[in-house]
C-alpha cells in the first residue's frame, strides 16, 4: 500500500463570490521512499496538493490517507501533533524565524517532542552536519545566504525524523550552484535516509533529480515520467 493515498479528491475555493474548482476527482499515490517532482503551470493545484498531504488544508470531499491515517478526520490539535511527527515542510522563501539562530530554528520541531535538552542538541548537530552548516549554527537567518537559509530550513524539516518531506519550490529563489547543493541534499535524504519526498517545482533541472515527475494541469494529472536511473 502506498504511503500517501489520494482518492477522488474534490477541492474548491471561494474567492469572494466565485467558487473556483481546483480538483474535480484527483486520485494519486506516493509510495514509500519515492521522490516525486510535481510540475505544472501556476494555478494547477500543485501547492494545494502539498497542503492537503500536510493536513494544512482539507479536501471538499474525497480521502487523503497518509501512512494509513485519514488526515481529514483529525481535529486541529491532533493534526498538529501528527504533523510534527510525520511531515517536514520546506518553503520557497525559507520562512526561518528571524529572531532565532540556525540552531534554534532547527530545534523548533524537537521542542514538540519529549527529548531532553541534550538529546535535542545532538539531533540538531547531526541535522546541521547533514546539510553542511555545522559552522553556521549560531548565525541568524539574515547572516546566511539564500542557499544556506534553505539548507537550514531543510534541516528543520527532517530533524524530527518525519517519513515525508514536502517542498514548495525549494530552489525558486536560488542561483544554480545553491540549487545543485539543495537538490543533492534531497537526493541524499531520499537515498540514504529513505525519506519520501514530494517537491513542487517549475524548474525542469530540479525535476530531473526526482525519481518520478508528475505533471498537473488544471487539477488533472497529465503525464507520469519515471527516471531511468
Amino acid at each position, binding site marked *: 500500500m502506498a504511503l500517501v493515498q489520494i482518492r477522488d479528491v474534490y477541492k474548491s475555493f471561494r474567492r469572494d463570490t466565485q467558487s473556483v474548482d481546483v480538483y474535480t476527482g484527483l486520485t494519486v499515490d506516493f509510495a514509500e521512499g519515492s521522490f516525486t517532482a510535481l510540475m505544472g503551470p501556476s494555478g494547477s493545484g500543485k501547492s494545494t496538493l502539498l497542503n492537503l498531504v*500536510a493536513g494544512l488544508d482539507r479536501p471538499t470531499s474525497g480521502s487523503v490517507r497518509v501512512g494509513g491515517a485519514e488526515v481529514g478526520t483529525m481535529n486541529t490539535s491532533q493534526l498538529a501533533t*501528527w504533523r510534527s511527527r510525520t511531515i517536514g515542510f520546506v518553503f520557497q522563501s525559507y*520562512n526561518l*524565524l528571524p529572531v*532565532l539562530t540556525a540552531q534554534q530554528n532547527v530545534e523548533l520541531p524537537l*521542542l514538540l517532542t519529549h527529548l531532553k535538552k541534550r538529546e535535542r542538541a545532538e539531533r540538531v548537530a547531526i541535522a546541521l552536519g547533514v546539510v553542511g552548516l555545522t559552522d553556521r549554527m549560531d548565525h541568524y537567518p539574515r547572516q546566511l545566504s539564500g542557499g544556506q537559509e534553505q539548507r537550514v530550513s531543510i534541516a528543520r524539516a527532517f530533524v524530527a525524523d518525519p517519513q515525508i518531506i514536502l517542498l514548495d519550490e525549494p530552489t525558486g529563489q536560488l542561483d544554480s550552484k545553491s540549487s545543485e547543493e539543495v537538490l543533492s541534499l534531497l537526493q541524499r535524504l531520499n537515498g540514504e535516509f529513505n525519506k519520501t519526498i514530494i517537491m513542487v517545482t517549475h524548474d525542469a533541472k530540479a525535476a530531473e533529480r526526482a525519481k518520478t515527475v508528475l505533471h498537473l494541469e488544471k487539477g488533472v494529472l497529465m503525464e507520469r515520467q519515471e527516471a531511468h536511473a
Partner: protein
Amino acid sequence: MRFIPLVLSNLLRQKLRTTLTVMSVALALFLFASLRSVVTQLEISGQVGAANRMIVQNAAAFIFPLPQSYANRLATVPHVTGVTWANWFGGKYGDGKKFFGPFAVDPVSYLDIYKNDFIIPPEQKEAFLRERTAAIVGPGLLKAFGWKIGDDVTLQGTIFPGDWTFTIRGTYALKDPAYGDEQFLFHYDYLYERNKENVTPGWFILRIDDPQQSGVVAKAIDDEFRNSTAPTKTGTEQAFSAGFVTLFGNIQLLLGTIGMAVVFAILLIAANAMLMNQRERTGEIAVLKTVGFTDRTIFTLVIVEAAVIALTGALIGLGLAIILPKATGFNAFGFLPGFHVTGGTAIVGAVIALFLAVVSGFTPAYQAARLPVVQALRRVE
C-alpha cells in the same frame, strides 16, 4: 520551559518597542501605587490614636476653648486614669510658607500620656521639663528648617500676637510614623503667662483604663457638661483623627477615578503593542503551525509574552513606588507623614499587572491560535 528561548527572542526582536511598552506599564503601576498610597495613608492617618485615649472638645466648634477647671472634674470620671490638655498655637516661622502646627501642652502629663508613642531620650526630656521656654521638635521639622537641639527659634504668633522665642531642648522618635515627625511641643504655662485673660485649654486628652468603656466615658462627660457654659463633645482619639481626615474632602473618589483612568489608558497601550506585534508575525505563526505547533501552544506563547511585559513593568513600577518615597522622604508637604506603599497596594498592583497580561494578550493570542495556516502562508509566499 523549553519554549522560553522562543519567547525571549520574540521579546528582544523589537527592543525599543518592548522597552517602551514595559516602561509605560511601569509608569502606570508607579502612578497607581502612589495614588493608592495617598488614599491608604489618609486612611492610616484617620486611624491614628491609641484605643485608650479620648479627646474632649468644645461641642460648638474646635476653635472654642474649654475652662481649665474641667481638668479636675474630668479626672474624677470613672475609668479616666490620666488627664492632660493642649492648645493650638498657630505660629509661623520665617516667611510662613512651611505649614506646621505648634501645640502648647501641659508638659508632665502630656509626655506621660504619650510616653509610649513619642520616644524621647531621658536627658532631653528632663531638659525640656526644667525650662519654661523649652520646646520638643520633631526630626522632620528640625530638618526642614535646619534647626538643631540647643537652638533658640522665634516664631510669630498668629492667634497670640507677638514674637515667641523657644529653646529646642529635645526631639523624639516615633513608634508609629503616622503621628508625624513635624510636631512642635512647648509648655502651656509659657503661653498662659503671656495671655492670662484669654488662654484656657483648647482640648483635653484622657487616658482610660478600658477601651471597651469609651462610649460610656464619652456619654458621662458630655452629660455632665451639657448644661454648662461650654458643653463638650467627647470621642476617641481615632474618631478625632478621622474627623481631621474628612477635612481633605473626597480625595478617595478623585484619586480612585484617576487611578482607573491610568490603568485603563495603559491597558490600551499594552494591548495595542501586543496586537501590533502579533500582526507582524502572522507568517511566522503560520510556519510554527506547519512545523506542528498546536493552537494551544501558540496561544500560550503569546500570553506568556504579554505576561512577561506586564510583570516586568509591574516589577519596575511598583519597585520605584516603594523605593522612591523612602529615598526622598516624600510626605506631601507634611500632610502625609510616614507616606509609604502598603503590602496591600503592592498586591493590588500585581493583580492589575496579571489582569493586564491576560487582557492585553488574550485577543492577539486568540487570533494567533485561530490563524488559518493556508491563508497566512499565502501572504508569506
